[in-house]
């Protein structure tokens, strides 16, 4: 992972020109961007969540799973702020593979997988039937599940943002992009299987926000942060109450302690 073994011929060719220094392809530090949910009082920006969901739905979901997120999460407090009716409508737009029917079939006469409309209880269905199908459709690369990606990577949402906006740079001299991969210095080893996923105006935001790549990336990173940690707002709110309580209690205990010990000194 740490160092790319260059093809011998290329290495020899380079030896003639520059001193042999193994290229360090450690990923770059994440980009420093601000998110609404940073800090102890940060909350999710509902507009960003809804826009980010749109980016996920229209772009990312073509390849990436969102295994742990259910449609009923969409109308839960501390989240996207959809109504139950809106969440139901979104769910109904998805086709969920059915269990075997009364004849024991999961395919119809033409061999097409039987499906039904999604309900609030369903989770987001995966784009591919299994890992093999996912790899077969992505040049052998496996697009990771995105429902935990922010918790599962160092740097969290900043990492996701950096990766998505980290394409289209010129690789440094001496670095060869592997065939079928893309150059992205924010990814460990610099060779990433994902092609640049976003372009300007790839989605059309209904709230009039200009859909630059940076905006889309920031929105989808916010959405994925929520997908990883849907209870964050509840957690921070409860934490504030708990700490106020504990500090007051500690104060009372401190004065009791001083009072009880006063007669000893």
């Amino acid at each position, binding site marked *: *992972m*740490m160092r790319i073994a260059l093809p011998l011929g290329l290495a020899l060719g380079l030896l003639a020109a520059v001193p042999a220094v193994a290229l360090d392809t450690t990923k770059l530090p994440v980009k420093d961007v601000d998110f609404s949910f940073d800090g*102890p009082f940060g909350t999710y920006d509902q507009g960003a969540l809804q826009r980010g969901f749109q980016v996920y739905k229209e772009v990312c979901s073509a390849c990436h799973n969102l295994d*742990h997120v*259910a449609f009923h*999460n969409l109308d839960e407090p501390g989240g996207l702020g959809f109504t139950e009716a809106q969440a139901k409508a979104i769910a109904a737009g998805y086709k969920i593979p059915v269990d075997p029917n009364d004849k024991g079939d999961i395919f119809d006469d033409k061999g097409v997988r039987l499906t039904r409309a999604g309900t609030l209880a369903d989770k987001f269905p995966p784009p591919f039937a299994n890992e093999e199908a996912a790899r077969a459709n992505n040049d052998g690369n496996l697009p*990771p599940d995105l429902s*935990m990606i922010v*918790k*599962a*990577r*160092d740097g969290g949402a900043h990492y996701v943002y950096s990766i998505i906006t980290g394409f289209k740079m010129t690789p440094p001299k001496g670095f060869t992009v592997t065939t079928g991969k893309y150059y992205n210095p924010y990814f*460990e080893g610099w060779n990433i299987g994902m092609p640049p996923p976003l372009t300007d105006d790839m989605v059309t935001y209904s709230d009039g926000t200009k859909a630059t790549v940076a905006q889309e990336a920031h929105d989808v990173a916010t959405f994925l942060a929520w997908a*990883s940690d*849907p*209870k964050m707002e509840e*957690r*921070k709110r*409860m*934490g*504030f109450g*708990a*700490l106020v309580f*504990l*500090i007051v*209690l*500690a104060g009372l*205990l*401190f004065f*009791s*302690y001083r009072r*009880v*010990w006063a*007669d*000893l*000194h």
Partner: protein
Amino acid sequence: MSGQSTYTPKSGLEKWIDQRLPLPRLMHDTMTTFPTPRNLNIWYTFGGILTFCLGVQIVSGIVLAMHYVPNASMAFDSVESIMRDVNYGWLMRYIHSTGASMFFLAVYIHMFRGLYYGSYKAPRELIWIIGVLIYVLMMATAFFGYVLPWGQMSFWGATVITSLFSSIDQIVPHLGTAITTWLWGDFAVGDATLNRFFSLHYLLPFIIAGVVGLHIWALHVPGNNNPLGIDVKSPQDTVPFHPYYTVKDAFYLCCFVALFAVFVFYAPNFFGNPDNYQQANPLVTPPDIVPEWYLLPFYAMLRSIPQKLIGVLVLVGSLVTLVFIPWLDTSRVRSCRFRPLMKQFFWAFAVDAVLLGYCGAQSVDAVAFGIPLVWVARLGTIYYFAYFWVIMPIVGLIETPKKLPASIAQSVLGESAAAPAE
């Protein structure tokens, strides 16, 4: 202080119970009137804090076990379902995962306090040895628990640690492998391993609770050591446990819980590894396999030895060494407060432990300031063993301790400590 009981049953019911099962008498004598040195400082509140930690882990763990599925193909999803679908499941899990780190933070402070004030010395050797046993049980419990979410670090951590037993192959061919296979219940870490680890993870805390009972029982025979390390000589040196230490312990416990809450609510994954939010995959080895922070110093020792079997022996030896401390310390004086030389070696040891932890967190080939960390870890390992086996016995013999105060009361109240305090 296992003196006469001062319990007098107040009601007919209490008298009736006292004659049949003197449990109220026990509680009264150990938690109310128990004579406790009057000079215990903040570092002595961690015993109570640790009891609290054990309680928190058991209660939150029992709730988690109601929702967790110990099955290799379902464990990861069940943990995520606890985080998302179970009411306050995220709270229970974050309390439990952060609680493990807070438990170890407290136990390390407790152990270093014991080392500094010589609390292991006669007549408290058994308290110390039972404490070492609790510590080892805690490590085992934490290791089993870390495997249960079945993330990448769970799986690979389990693989690395259980594979240590295969080093026995170097002494008796095939025996180590046989033991490893027996531990796994399979030819690799898998479903069978996860199931037995869950079973043991549920069992060990109750064994710890039992051994903690012995620890406290053993403590209540000679009574507490104290920062001066001198014996209690008169009733003036002590105060009743209640209310003096119940209120003091409660205050510091509350501060500790506030720190605990900061992590649970504002940095719940601070002690965790992001890789553990990826499901276990036997086909993908993470670039760096790192154990939880509280095991890092031992991990650094293990890795610094190029020969696997010797590495394992060093690891085991580092823990077994702790058992012998009461006899390795040859000093007549308990507390480092009066041991100018030993005090310096003690703080060097504390730095060494942190340094080893740092080395354990870095990758094997890491270099800091031009020095390969594996060599830093080797020197750190040598100092760890030298501190107990060489420095402790020799310094105790050659050091001239400072003059000890005549009594605890005199030290606290000054020379004019003639009048009774209470």
